[in-house]
């Protein structure tokens, strides 16, 4: 009699785009992002000191600490953006009554939930990209600065031995500054942020308070980093270890540390960790959908 209303990707997209615009126009995110960019930019000045004599060793340490700081900022600010951005979605919708106007149109609840989620994922993605660009800029600046003395030696020295050594140093600094493996680290940070956003969304499907959502998500964040440790400590109690499996092991996503140290991280490993994140995330979203579709609004 009436036409069928199927699941519509276009509607999900509309809601995601709207969520993204709305979040982008809020001051909170601009402030967080500016803060992140400042931290990343100033990372190049943190590590100015060093008293090792070899230019390449000095560079190695300074680049390491810059990368550590930048990844730290990326991870923390990204986490705040993902968690806070998601935590306020449903409470705001309820407060502004917009959820009523949307769900009273031919829109499925799953479309609404996915749209909201993808909106923050997009916001997180844009933030991560912006921070990464800044990160690259800092590395470019620092690379030029650190290889300056070695380049000067290359130009001025008469001795071929000295010249060769300096050239090797320049090449080493360059290779360390622009290690393409960094992309793998950034990718896994992003997957981790998507997972945290999904968990926050799940929490907000049964709570009404944004503060509660943020608090629980932060708790999961810390628990997620502790869970590996806890499993080791409680090895004797298999039941406990099994229950701990419910908490996502966020340590798995921290390969950035190892990439910075120059350890080889194969794409296959990155793929598995991404897979772990995506499977976990889909389970969380399924649970969120289940609760949300039965929720009284």
């Amino acid at each position, binding site marked *: 009699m009436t036409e069928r209303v199927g699941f519509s990707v276009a509607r999900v997209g509309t809601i995601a785009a709207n969520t993204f615009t709305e979040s982008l126009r809020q001051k909170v995110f601009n402030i967080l992002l500016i803060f992140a960019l400042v931290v990343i930019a100033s990372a190049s000045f943190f*590590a100015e*000191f060093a008293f*090792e004599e070899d230019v390449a*060793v000095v560079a*190695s*340490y300074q680049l*390491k*600490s810059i*990368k*550590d*700081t930048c*990844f*730290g900022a990326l*991870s923390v600010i990204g986490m705040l953006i993902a968690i806070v951005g998601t935590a306020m979605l449903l409470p705001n919708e309820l407060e502004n009554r917009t959820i009523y106007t949307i769900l009273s149109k031919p829109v*499925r*609840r799953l479309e609404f939930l996915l749209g909201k989620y993808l909106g923050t994922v997009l916001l997180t993605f844009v933030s991560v990209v912006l921070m990464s660009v800044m990160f690259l800029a800092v590395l470019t600046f620092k690379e030029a600065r650190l290889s300056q003395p070695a380049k000067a030696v290359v130009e001025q020295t008469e001795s*071929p*031995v000295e*010249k*060769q*050594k300096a050239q*090797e140093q320049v090449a080493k600094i360059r290779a360390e500054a622009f290690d393409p493996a960094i992309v793998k680290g950034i990718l896994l940070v992003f997957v981790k942020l998507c997972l945290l956003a999904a968990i926050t969304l799940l929490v907000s499907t049964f709570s009404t308070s944004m503060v509660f959502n943020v608090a629980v998500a932060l708790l999961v*964040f*810390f628990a997620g*980093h*502790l869970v*590996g*440790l806890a499993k*080791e400590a409680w090895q004797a109690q298999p039941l406990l270890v099994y229950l701990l*499996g419910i908490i996502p*092991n*966020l*340590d*798995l*996503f*921290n*390969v*950035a*540390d*190892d990439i*910075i*140290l*120059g*350890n*080889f*991280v194969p794409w296959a*490993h990155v793929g*598995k*960790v991404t897979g*772990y994140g995506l*499977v*976990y995330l*889909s*389970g969380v979203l*399924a*649970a969120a*959908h*289940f609760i949300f*579709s*039965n929720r009284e609004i």
Partner: protein
Amino acid sequence: MRTPRSLAVVLIAVPAWLLTPLHNQIEHERQQFQYGGAPVTRELRDQIGQGMAIALLAGFRGVAADFIWIRAHDHWEKREWLLQAESIENAAKLQPRSTFFWDSGSWHMGWNIARAERIGTNDITIAQGLIRERYWHQRARSFLERGIANIPNRFDLYFKLGWLYDQKLARGCGGDPECVKLQNTKAAELFIRASEYPTAPTYVARDAARSLEKAGDLPAAYDFWVNKIWRDDRRIRTAADRTIVEREIRRLEERLDIPAPSRVFPKTSAS
């Protein structure tokens, strides 16, 4: 439009079922690749302080290690050698796969602290100074050996340990020829080991040949120069490499008095 309970259970249970093997496999790979570092034990937490421990637990291992390294510098400036060494140890413990902490840390112990302990204060005798210096040489050696155990797949730490034998341990023999021979042989072994890694710079192999010579085995040194360096393309990458190696081979051919036909560089009429 309510979701049936059974469907929900399936949607949640299937990912959970998929996850366990995947999780275990990732964990296994992490152990295999030696990702991460020392677990945060109570002892480690007491040593690095509460703040660093929290950073560590939140997944900021690298940042925590960097801060502890900065702390090591503070101790250096205050001449607190043992505390400096402890900070170095902790930084390396947090990121045992970082060549920098082992490399630079051993340099602090074996070179800087050792020297400062020997000549830094006026209230000890020369003998006491030497004993203290040797303590730090040995400490640097054991530190580097642990580093090698953690990073056996790179040339850096073999080379550094070889350098420690060459520069410090052999020179600390006080003229005992047996000791000198022994230490330089160790150095040569380590340099040779380091030179086998494709990433090792060309000077590593040259240092191996020089250590063989210092250990007193001139024929072995000559053989190494000719067969392992001169005839190996990986060792002669630039004009500078060629110049240095040629000079060393000519010198040894003179010294060992190699007969003209066997020489790599037969005597020219000019010389």
